[in-house]
C-alpha cells in the first residue's frame, strides 16, 4: 500500500509504453492504493492474460521499472513487478475468473498451434472477440516454457497452470495433441485461420568429441527439475553458454545439489546475453564463470576447453591453451534451433534466419491463413514479448476475418 501510494500516477506513463503488452501500470497501481485489488487484477488481465507469470519472470529492470520516472529524481523505481504479483496472486487465491467481454458468439474457428504464452494469449484474445478457439499443445501440460522452461524459483508449475485454467474457463479449448505436418491441410479446411505459436525446436547440440554421453540439454534439465523428474544432477556441472537459460540451468544445478557449477562462455562478460541482474543472481547462488573458453572435447567427466580471443579483424579465434574442467554433466545452453523442418511443411510461409516472417503489427505471415508469434517469430525472447505477439496476432486475425472491434470493458 505504501509502495502503491508512492507511484506518481504519470500520464501516458513510460512504464506502460515500455511494457510489450502495455499494461496500464498507474491504473492498476492506483486501484491497489484504493483497496480495489480485484479491479486492479482485472485491469492487468485486460492487457496481459498471463500477467501472473509475467509478474514473476519479466525482466522488469529493463522494462516497466527501468523506465520509471523515479530514476530521473534519483529514487528507486516503483516496484511494479511486485505490485502486479500481489494483485495477480490475490486474484487467483480468491478464485476469481477472467471477465468475459460482452460480445456475440461468432461462427469463426481458429486453431492456435503450440501451448505456450504466444498461443495462449492469442487464443484468449480471440475468445474475447467471440471466436471459437482451439489450442493444440504437444506436451502433457499446457503453458509451454512457462510450465517447463522457466526456472522453478521464478515460476512454479502450479502458477503457470492456474493461468492456463483461467484461460480455459473463458471458453478456450485446449487439446494436448501434437499437430503433424500431415494435419495442416485438414486444418486449413477446418479453421478460418491458424496461429503458429510453436516456439523453437531442440537446443543446439554440442558438437564435440565425446559429447554423446554425460550431456543434458538445458531446457530438459530445467523442465526435469521443475516437474520433479530429475532429483540430482551430479557433483560437477558445466553449463555452456551465457544467456538467461544458461543462468537458469546453472542455478537449477546448484539447487539440485551440485558442488561445482561453472558457466563456460567463449566470450567475455560484456558480451553475454544474460541480463545483469540474472548474472548477479547466479553469482549469489555460487555459480562460477569461466570466460573466454570454448569446449573442444569431453573425456570421462572432464571437459577440455580451449582459450579464445578476438583477433585484429574482430573475429573469435581459438588458441592453443587448454583448460580442463571437472564436469560429470555438461549442459549446453547455446540457443534453440528453429523448428525449420516442421515449419517448412507449411507451404507459402516465408522464413528468414530460421524465423517466420510476419507483419509486426498483425502477426500476418505471407500465407493469408497463417499468423504467427512468439519465439518462432522473434527468435527467442521474453514471455511478455510472446504475449504481446499473440495479442497483436489475435487482433490481426479478427481484422482479417472482418470482425468488428469490440470495445473493452
Amino acid at each position, binding site marked *: *500500500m*505504501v509502495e502503491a*501510494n*508512492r507511484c*506518481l*500516477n*504519470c*500520464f*501516458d*506513463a*513510460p512504464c*506502460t*509504453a*515500455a*511494457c*510489450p503488452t*502495455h499494461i496500464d501500470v498507474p491504473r492498476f497501481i492506483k486501484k491497489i*492504493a484504493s483497496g480495489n485489488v480485484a479491479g486492479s487484477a482485472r485491469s492487468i488481465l485486460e492487457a496481459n492474460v498471463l500477467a501472473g507469470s509475467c509478474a514473476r519472470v*519479466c*525482466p522488469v529492470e*529493463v*522494462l516497466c521499472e527501468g523506465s520509471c*520516472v*523515479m530514476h*530521473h*529524481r534519483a529514487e528507486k523505481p516503483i516496484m511494479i513487478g511486485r505490485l502486479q504479483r500481489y494483485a495477480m496472486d490475490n486474484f487467483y487465491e480468491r478464485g476469481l475468473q477472467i471477465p468475459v467481454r460482452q460480445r456475440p458468439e461468432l461462427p469463426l474457428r481458429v486453431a492456435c498451434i503450440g501451448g505456450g504464452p504466444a498461443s495462449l494469449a492469442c487464443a484468449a484474445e480471440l475468445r474475447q472477440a467471440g471466436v471459437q478457439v482451439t489450442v493444440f499443445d504437444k506436451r502433457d501440460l499446457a503453458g509451454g516454457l512457462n510450465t517447463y522452461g522457466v526456472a522453478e524459483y521464478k515460476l512454479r508449475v502450479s502458477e503457470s497452470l492456474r493461468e492456463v485454467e483461467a484461460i480455459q474457463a473463458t471458453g478456450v479449448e485446449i487439446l494436448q495433441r501434437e499437430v503433424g505436418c500431415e494435419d495442416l491441410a485438414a486444418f486449413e479446411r477446418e479453421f478460418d485461420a491458424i496461429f503458429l505459436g510453436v516456439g523453437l525446436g531442440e537446443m543446439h547440440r554440442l558438437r564435440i568429441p565425446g559429447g554423446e554421453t554425460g550431456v543434458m540439454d538445458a531446457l530438459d534439465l530445467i523442465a526435469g527439475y521443475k516437474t520433479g523428474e530429475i532429483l540430482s544432477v551430479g557433483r560437477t556441472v558445466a553449463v555452456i553458454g551465457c544467456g538467461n537459460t544458461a543462468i537458469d540451468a546453472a542455478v537449477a544445478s546448484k539447487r539440485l545439489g551440485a558442488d561445482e557449477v561453472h558457466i563456460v562462455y567463449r566470450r567475455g562478460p560484456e*558480451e*553475454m*546475453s544474460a*541480463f545483469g541482474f540474472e548474472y548477479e543472481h547466479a553469482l549469489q547462488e555460487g555459480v562460477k564463470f569461466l570466460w573466454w573458453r570454448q569446449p573442444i572435447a569431453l573425456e570421462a567427466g572432464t571437459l577440455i576447453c580451449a582459450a579464445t580471443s578476438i583477433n585484429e579483424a574482430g573475429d573469435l579465434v581459438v588458441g592453443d591453451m587448454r583448460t580442463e574442467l571437472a564436469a560429470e554433466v555438461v549442459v549446453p545452453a547455446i540457443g534453440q534451433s528453429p523448428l525449420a523442418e516442421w515449419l517448412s511443411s507449411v507451404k507459402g510461409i516465408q522464413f528468414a534466419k530460421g524465423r517466420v516472417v510476419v507483419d*509486426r*503489427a498483425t502477426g500476418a505471415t505471407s500465407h493469408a491463413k497463417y499468423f504467427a508469434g512468439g519465439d518462432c517469430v*522473434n527468435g527467442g*525472447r*521474453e514471455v*511478455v*514479448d510472446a504475449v*504481446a505477439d499473440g495479442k*497483436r496476432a489475435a487482433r490481426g486475425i479478427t481484422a482479417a476475418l472482418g470482425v468488428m472491434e469490440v470495445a473493452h470493458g
Partner: protein
Amino acid sequence: MASLKTTFAGIECINPFWLASAPPTNCGEQIMRAFDAGWGGAVWKTIGEPITNVSSRYSSVDWAGQRMMGLNNIELISDRPIEVNLAEIAEVKRRYPKHAVIASLMVESRRDVWHEMVKRAEDAGSDGLELNFGCPHGMSERGMGSAVGQVPEYAQMITEWVKEVACTPVLVKLTPNITDIRVVARAAKLGGADALSAINTINSITGIDLDTFTPRPNVDGKSSHGGYCGPAVKPIALNMVQSVMADPASALPMSAIGGIGTWRDAAEFLLVGAGTVQVCTAVMHYGYRIVEDMIDGLSQWMDEKGFATLDDFRGLSLPRVTEWKHLNLNYKIVAQIDESLCIGCDLCHIACWDGAHQCIHTDRVTGPVDGHVEVHRKPMEAVHATMNSIAVTRIPKMDPPAVSPGLYKAPLARIPRVDETECVGCNLCSLVCPVEDCITMKEVPAGLAPETWEERTAKLGIVEQC
C-alpha cells in the same frame, strides 16, 4: 539569537508554544513532562463536573499513505474530579512558576456556578482562564460548549459573569462551527474578554466502515459527530484567525489553534496576528518532543529574517489579505518548466488539459501546430498511440538503446511545453509537479497600470448589484 519570550494578555510566557486543552494536558504529570520538553505553557484539559466517556473516542483521515492528516474525537471534558485537577494545577505552578498554566473551564450556564468555578481555579494558581465555548460534541447537547459559542448573546453573558469575579486574564475559545466566527468574537469582546483562542474543532464524521456501515469511531455499532483537527484544518483555522484579527471589533490577543505542528505553522499564525499558538494533534501523534524544533526552527528563521522578538513580525501578513475586488487584474504570471529538472511524468500536461486551461502540450518533438486555429494532440490520442505501439524487451546484446540519451534527464518527447500566450497563470501545474522548483511562475509585464475590479467597475460606472 532571537527571543521567543512574549507577554500574552498580561501572562508572561517563556515562548509562544502552548499545549491546547486536550488529552496531552489531562493531568499534572503530563504537563510537567511537557514543560521539561520545552513547552512554554499549557491549557488544562477542560475542568468541570466530571463526565463519563465512551470507548472508542478517536478516528482519523489518512491520505496517500500518510497517517492522521486529520483527527476526530468524541471525547468530552475532563473525567477527573474538579478538586484533583485544581490540586495538580497548584502543584505544577509550585514546581514550574515561569510556565503558563491556563485553566480551561466549562460548567453549567448559571452565574453562581461560573463564579464559584472561576474563584477555585484562580485560587489554585492558574495564570489565566480559558472559557470553553467551542466543544462541538456531547457537551453541546447539555447546553454547554459550542451551544454557548454559537449564540453571541450567551457567549457575551457568560463572559460578563466570569469577568465579574476573575482576577486573571480571561480567554474565550471560539467555535468554528458558525457562519461568521467574528460575530461571537465581537460578543466576547463586548463581554469584556481579555483574549481569544481559536479555533476549536470542526464538526465532522471522518469516515464510514464499508463492511459494518458504522461511522468511525465505532461505539458499539453507532457513532456520533466529533471534532476535527490536525493538519487538515490548518487552512480553515488560518482564515478564521485572520478574519478575527483583521476586524477591529473582534481583535484581541489571540492564542491560535488549528493544525499547528511545526514552527512554520506557528510563524504563519503569528504573521496573521496571533500572540501564542496552541498545539494538540501533532503532540498526540509524535509526543511532546516536537516542541524542540518548533523553538529551534522559529528562532533560526527569525535570525535569518532579522526579527529580534515575536512582536517584530506579529501581524505582518494581515494587510496582505484583502478582498478580491482589491486584487490587481493586470498582474500576469506564466508557468515555466525547467527542462533539466523535468522527470517526464506529464502530470502538468494532463492537469492543464483536464483541470485547467489546455495550454501545456507534449509537442516538443513533433513541433507546435499553433496557427490561426490551434490544433493540438489531445491527451487520449497520446495514450492510444502508446497502447498501439510495438515495444519489445530489449536485450542489450541484440537491440539498440530504446531512447538515445538526450539533452535532459527525461526524453524530450515527455517534457511538456507551456504555451505562454494561452497560460492564465493559475499555478495548477506548479502545484501538481512532483519535482521541487521544476515548474515556476514567472511574472510577465502586462504593460498596463495596476487596476483592481473595484477601480475598473467604478471607471465604467457599473454599480454592483447583489
